């Protein structure tokens, strides 16, 4: 399976995703510039963390007008895996591929540290290698990570098992219902604030993120049906 890592102006965790997939997992991965119009030949697409367009206006708000965006939306509609971490998650919500929005952390500050998470749903393309309700730890690094949606949307997310990760101890950003990551209804688009790509090598002190990429790779060139 061939995976695209999108490089938006201001992306900066693109290298980290690329290395996690390519060097650590041995996957077939390539950078794709936001200038491109097509993702033909790719089986999955990843939106990295960083500060696309400087996070000016709102995090992720401007990136959705780039040339590549229609191709990403098309892949999502085709049921192919689409993954966004941190700024990638923010872009996915701004583009309407995921519900809700990410708002400024309650502390009003950027926060970088490891946080305990619960894998709420291990029945997704991205989490099949985790145990049900497994506790893991992943790094976060963001200023706008508070997941917000109205009650109805939140209830629907829970009812459809779209909440995939939850903050397990403290809530680091004011996220409603401690939400750390969600999928779309179909389950092929995952957005999460924590950085699994920062937790794939023992030398960096944490390998809890590795199984997310392994899950995706073993599930192969899947297409998720309705």
């Amino acid at each position, binding site marked *: 399976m061939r995976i695209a890592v999108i490089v938006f102006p201001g992306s900066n965790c693109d290298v980290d995703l690329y290395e996690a997939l390519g060097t650590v997992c041995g996957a077939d991965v390539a950078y794709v510039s936001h200038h491109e119009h097509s993702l033909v030949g790719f089986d999955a697409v990843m939106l990295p963390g960083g500060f696309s367009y400087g996070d000016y206006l709102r995090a992720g708000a401007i990136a959705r007008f780039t040339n590549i965006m229609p191709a990403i939306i098309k892949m999502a509609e085709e049921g192919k895996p689409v993954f966004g971490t941190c700024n990638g998650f923010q872009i996915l919500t701004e583009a309407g591929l995921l519900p809700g*929005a990410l708002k400024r952390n*309650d502390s009003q500050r950027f926060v970088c540290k490891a946080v305990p998470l619960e894998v709420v749903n291990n029945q997704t393309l991205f989490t099949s290698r985790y145990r049900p309700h497994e506790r893991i730890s992943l790094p976060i690094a963001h200023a706008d990570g508070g997941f917000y949606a109205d009650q109805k949307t939140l209830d629907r997310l829970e009812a459809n098992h779209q909440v995939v990760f939850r903050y397990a101890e403290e809530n680091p950003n*004011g996220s409603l219902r401690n939400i750390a990551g969600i999928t779309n209804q179909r389950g092929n688009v995952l957005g999460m604030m924590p950085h699994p790509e920062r937790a794939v090598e023992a030398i960096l002190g944490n390998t809890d993120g590795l199984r997310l990429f392994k899950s995706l790779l073993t599930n192969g060139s899947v297409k998720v049906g309705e």
Partner: protein
Amino acid sequence: MTNVRIFVTYKQSVFDPQGETIKDAIHTLGHDEVTAVKVGKFFDVTIDATGAAVDQAVKEIADQLLVNFNMETYHYQVLEEAE
């Protein structure tokens, strides 16, 4: 040429801790008569158009870009208009 000021705020239902933090700081300065603080942002936009075309442009820009309707709302004010 029209100058428009577009105000964007969180919806009433969205908790905004920033205003609270600033209120506390104001109290530290001794201004206890300040009982509430809300924070918002605004965009001063110069538009090379007048009349209805301005309203149309503002609506489109706000809808598509400046406002995230999941959590925000907006209103605007025409500051000055000149032919």
